[in-house]
């Protein structure tokens, strides 16, 4: 299985000379199974460049959304495969008790927010509620679980040939915890993360920033490192960088995080364009 980071920024696309290395595009990760199955994790602005890279290949694309906040769906309208009639696109999103996925996505993909309506896209679209538990996408198996973030939000673990990648871009497992980390069975996200080969996880804040944003649904870098340690992951990729954090600032923060002591996993600063073999 191979993963490529097409967008690593959180909350808001942040293009500029100060974000060139880590990237300014919002959440999007391409996952290729060993059998060629293509999964796209989230449709942030990073999905535009992925669409261009795909060209006319890939007759079937599977887009798994963690949730429907704008920074995770904003790239939809700029994903060229959606405008090709011969492509089958499956979109999976967390279930809601009130509106189906089509209705919720149409709020964005319709005027006045966007000129093209979801129903007018020429590709063959199929929308699905994510089954909580597990399901298969092509030759890949996907585990999904609700995680702590405002509104229904899921984390995914994708399995292929005994290896796994876990993707939880927006996650606040420390919310309300009187101490963190604590017991694994009382920790959000643990079930889809334990023992994973590659964890791509929210590291939006520093600890002082987190203190000012409790309940916003994101993690401080220190929390994510503690979570990765608890879950015994093999590699941790930092993700969902705060729009205000420049390349230099991120270098400094991650260097500081890595210097707190030996880590039982490899800490990898998540940068746009990075590729991983899993």
């Amino acid at each position, binding site marked *: 299985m191979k993963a490529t980071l097409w967008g690593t920024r959180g909350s808001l696309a942040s293009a500029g000379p100060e974000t060139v290395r880590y990237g300014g595009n919002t959440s999007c990760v391409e996952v290729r199974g060993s059998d060629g199955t293509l999964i796209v994790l989230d449709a942030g602005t990073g999905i535009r460049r992925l669409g261009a890279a795909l060209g006319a290949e890939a007759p079937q694309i599977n887009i798994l959304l963690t949730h429907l906040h704008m920074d995770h769906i904003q790239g939809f309208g700029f994903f060229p495969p959606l405008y090709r009639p011969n492509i089958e696109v499956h979109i999976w999103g967390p279930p*809601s008790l009130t509106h189906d996925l089509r209705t919720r996505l149409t709020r964005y993909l319709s005027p006045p927010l966007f000129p093209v309506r979801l129903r007018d896209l020429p590709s063959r679209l199929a929308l699905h509620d994510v089954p909580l538990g597990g399901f298969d996408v092509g030759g890949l198996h996907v585990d999904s*679980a609700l995680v702590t973030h405002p509104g*229904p939000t899921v984390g995914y673990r994708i399995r292929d040939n005994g290896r796994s990648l876990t993707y939880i871009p927006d996650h606040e497992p420390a919310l309300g915890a009187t101490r963190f980390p604590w017991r694994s069975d009382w920790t959000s996200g643990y079930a889809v993360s334990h023992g994973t080969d590659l964890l791509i996880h929210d590291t939006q804040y520093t600890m002082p920033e987190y203190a000012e944003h409790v309940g916003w649904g994101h993690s401080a870098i220190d929390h994510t490192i503690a979570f990765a340690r608890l879950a015994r992951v093999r590699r941790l990729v930092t993700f969902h960088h705060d729009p205000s954090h420049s390349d230099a600032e991120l270098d400094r923060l991650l260097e500081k995080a890595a210097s707190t002591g030996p880590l039982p996993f490899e800490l990898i600063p998540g940068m746009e364009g990075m590729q991983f073999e899993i």
Partner: protein
Amino acid sequence: MLQQEVEVILMRQLASYLAMPIFVVDPSGNLLFYNEPAEALLGRPFDEAGEMPMAEWAIAFSPSDEEDRPLPPEALPLVNALRRRRPAHRTIRITGLDGISRRIETMAFPLVGQGGRLLGATAIFWDLDSR
């Protein structure tokens, strides 16, 4: 189970911050948690009592009606909320693990998560003797 459902984790975290006595069980009725205000009514810190099956907690606190007639588990609001998937309320008398009998109001409701999953139930107690 590797991990509790996230709604149950958040329920416990909320309960741990509230000043009302709260008791949380899983879909089988097993006690998962009660908070510090509930410890005062139940007569033992949760860390000492620990998780326990319904068959145990349903009799451990010797629940009875207001005339001191013992109540079977199915007469308890928490068990009703779980089995009937609807809120339940009753005034009962319990004897804490410290041996003290207290008259309490119990308001229980099921915890139903996304997709209609029954995740357990929660009871809020109100100590009538101290008011």
